[in-house]
C-alpha cells in the first residue's frame, strides 16, 4: 500500500550530509547538537547531532522509546534549549534570540502537532485553527479566516467548524491541529507522534493530510513515528540510536522492522 506514496519520494534529491548541492533552502540545521538533562543523575540524551532539513521535505524520525526523539523535536522548534551545539532555524542561530524573539519564531516559522491534540476546549474548531493567528495578531482578518476555512474544508472539517474539541473524534481533532499548525504559514511543522493516539485508519487519514499539505504548500515536515508504514512513506527516515542520529535507507528500515517484528513474534 505504500507504493502510491513512494512514487513521490525524493530521497536522492536531498542526500543527507554536507555535500548536499540542492538549491532548496535549508529550514533547520543543527551542528553538534547536544542535550543532557541535568538532575540527581545527569541523563545525556543527544551526543552531537548534525541534521539538515530542507524546504518541501517530509522527514520521519524513528527510534526506540526514550531514545530522545521528542527531545530533539522540541529543540528543533525552539521550545527547549540544547546544552551544546547550534540550532539554526531559517538561518538564525536561536541561541542569539531572547524570549520574545523565540516566541515570534515559534509563531512565524514553526508549527507543532502533538500526540494528544491539545486543542483548547474553550474554543470551537475554527477558533482553535485560527489560534496562532489570534495569538500573533489579536484577531484574524477576513483573508486569514478564509484561508483557514479553506484548509478546514480540505481536511474534511467543513461541517465541524463550530464544534468544540470534545464534540469531535480524535481524528477530527488531529486534523484540526494540522490546520492550526499551518495557520501562520510556517516553514516547518514538527509532529510528535501525530497518529499515536489514533486507530490505524484515522492515523492513515491524518498522515495523508499532512503529506498533502506538505506537497501543496512546500512546508517541511519532521514527524516522529512508531508506525513503520508511515515512516516508509516519508521522503527520508532518520534513526536516533544511542544518542546519535543517522539516515537509514528504506531497505535498511524494512529489514530492521522485520527483524524487530520477528523478535517480538518469538
Amino acid at each position: 500500500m505504500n507504493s502510491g506514496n513512494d512514487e513521490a519520494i525524493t530521497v536522492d534529491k536531498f542526500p543527507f550530509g554536507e555535500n548536499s548541492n540542492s538549491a532548496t533552502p535549508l529550514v533547520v540545521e543543527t551542528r553538534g547538537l547536544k542535550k543532557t538533562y541535568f538532575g540527581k543523575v545527569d541523563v545525556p540524551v543527544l551526543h552531537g547531532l548534525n541534521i539538515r532539513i530542507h524546504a518541501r521535505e517530509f522527514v520521519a524520525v524513528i527510534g526506540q522509546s526514550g531514545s530522545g526523539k521528542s527531545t530533539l523535536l522540541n529543540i528543533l522548534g525552539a521550545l527547549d534549549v540544547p546544552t551544546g551545539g547550534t540550532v539554526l532555524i531559517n538561518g538564525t542561530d536561536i541561541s542569539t534570540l531572547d524570549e520574545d524573539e523565540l516566541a515570534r519564531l515559534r509563531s512565524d516559522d514553526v508549527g507543532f502537532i502533538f500526540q494528544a491534540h491539545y486543542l483548547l476546549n474553550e474554543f470551537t474548531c475554527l477558533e482553535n485553527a485560527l489560534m496562532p493567528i489570534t495569538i500573533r495578531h489579536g484577531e484574524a482578518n477576513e483573508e486569514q479566516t478564509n484561508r483557514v476555512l479553506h484548509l478546514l474544508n480540505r481536511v474534511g472539517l467543513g461541517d465541524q467548524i463550530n464544534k468544540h474539541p470534545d464534540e469531535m473524534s480524535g481524528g477530527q481533532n488531529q486534523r484540526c491541529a494540522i490546520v492550526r499548525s499551518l495557520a501562520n504559514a510556517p516553514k516547518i511543522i514538527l509532529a510528535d507522534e501525530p497518529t499515536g493516539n489514533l486507530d490505524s485508519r484515522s492515523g492513515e487519514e491524518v498522515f495523508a493530510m499532512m503529506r498533502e499539505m506538505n506537497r501543496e504548500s512546500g512546508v517541511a515536515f519532521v514527524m516522529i513515528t512508531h508506525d513503520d508504514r508511515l515512516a516508509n512513506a516519508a521522503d527520508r527516515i532518520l534513526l536516533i540510536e544511542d544518542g546519535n542520529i543517522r539516515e537509514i535507507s528504506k531497505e535498511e528500515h524494512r529489514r530492521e522492522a522485520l527483524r524487530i517484528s520477528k523478535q517480538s513474534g518469538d
Partner: protein
Amino acid sequence: MKSLFGIFISALVPKKFRFEFQLALRHLLSGGSQTLLTISAVGAGVIIVIFITSLIFGLEEMMTNLLTESIPHVVVQVKDPKPDGLQDAENPVSNKIEQQTSQLKFIDNGEQVVRTIRGLPNVRGVTSVVSGQGFASKGANPVGVAVIGAEPELLDEITPVTKDLVEGKYRGLGSDEIVIDTELAKDLNVNVGDRIHLTSSSGQADSFSIKGIYDRGQGRGSAYVTLRNGQSLFGLGTSINVIYIKIYDIYDVEDLSNTIMTLTPYEAKPWTKDFSRFLTNIRMMEASAYLISIFSLIASAFAIASVLVVSVLQKSAQIGILKSMGARQQQILTVFIFEGLGVAILGSALGALIGMTIVYLISLLKRSDAVIGGEPASLFPVKILPVYIGAAILAAIISTVIAAVLPARRAAKLNPVDVMR
C-alpha cells in the same frame, strides 16, 4: 458569522489584547462554579467592608451629632482656684469666704472677650451666658434646676432649644419669661402660660411666665431665661460668668481652647475633656472598622489566589501549547491578570450592589421606642459613604489583581516542554 458579542469585543478591546481578553473570558465562562466561587469571595469581601464601614461611621456620626449638637464645643469660665494648693495653705480663711460668697465667678470684660473669640479661626458662634443653680417652685415644693440666661437667638445657634420645643416658643423670650423642660413641667404640674417662682443659689428670686416647654429626651434639662434676667437672678450686674463657643471642625477643638487660654486669663474647656471616653470609643470603632475591612479583603484575596493557583495548574498543558504556538510570557501573564480583573470587577460590583441594598434595608428599620411627635429614630444609624464604597471596590480590585499576579507569573514562566509531556 460574527456574534453580537464579538462586535462588542471588537469595539471595546484593543486588537492588541483581543487574544488575551478572549482567552480570559473563555476561562471564566468555562470555569463555572470555580468562577462563581471567586466572584462570591470578592463580593463577600466588599459586602463586609460596606456593611461595617457604613454601620460604624453611621454610629459615629450619630453619637457625635448627639453629643455636639446640643452642647457648646468650648466653654470659657473663670479658672477654678481650687487646684491651686499654695494659695489654699497661705490664706485658707479668705479662700473659704470667697468660695461661699461668689459661687459664680464672673467674667467682667465679657463683651471684649466675646469679640476676641469671634475673630479666631474655626469659630462658628459665640454667646455670653449666665449659668447657675436655683430652685423652681409653684406653690409648695421647690425643685432644683440649672438656670441658663442667654439671648435666645444666639443660644439657639449653640445649644439649640427651639428645635426641641414641644409647646410654646423660645425665640423672642421676653423679660420675666422662661422656657423649661417637660420633666420640670411635670414635677411642678405646670403648662405654657403658667407662672413659676425661681430662687437662685445666690438668693435672688423672681417670678416667670412659662413661654415654652422642650424635650430632649435626655433627662432633666435646664431652664432658660434671658441674659438680663439671669444677670439679675445671680446678682452679676452687667457681667457674665460663662461664654459658649460653637466651632466648625469639632475635632480641632484643642487648638482653639489653647489659643483662648493664651489670649485671655480664663479657662477654655474643650468638649473633648468631658467626653474623652467617648472619643476613645470612636477611635477604637474606626480602627476596628478599618481592621475588619482589611482582613476581609485579605481573606478574599487569599481565596482568589488559591483558586487561581489551582486554575493555573489545571491549565498548564494549555499554557504549554499556547507557548508552542508563539504566545509570549507577557501574553500569558495578561490572560491571568485579565481573569483576576474580571473576577474583581464582577465581584465588587455585585458586592457593592448587595452591600448597599443591605445597608439601605437596615436603614429602614425604625426603633419601636421612638419619641412621640419626633421622627422615629433608625434602629441602626447607618451611613452610606460613596467614598468608602469606591475605596472598597478599588481595594477589592487591587487585592484581587495582586492575588492573580502571583499564579499568573508562575503560569507565564512555565516551560512548555515540562508541561506537555
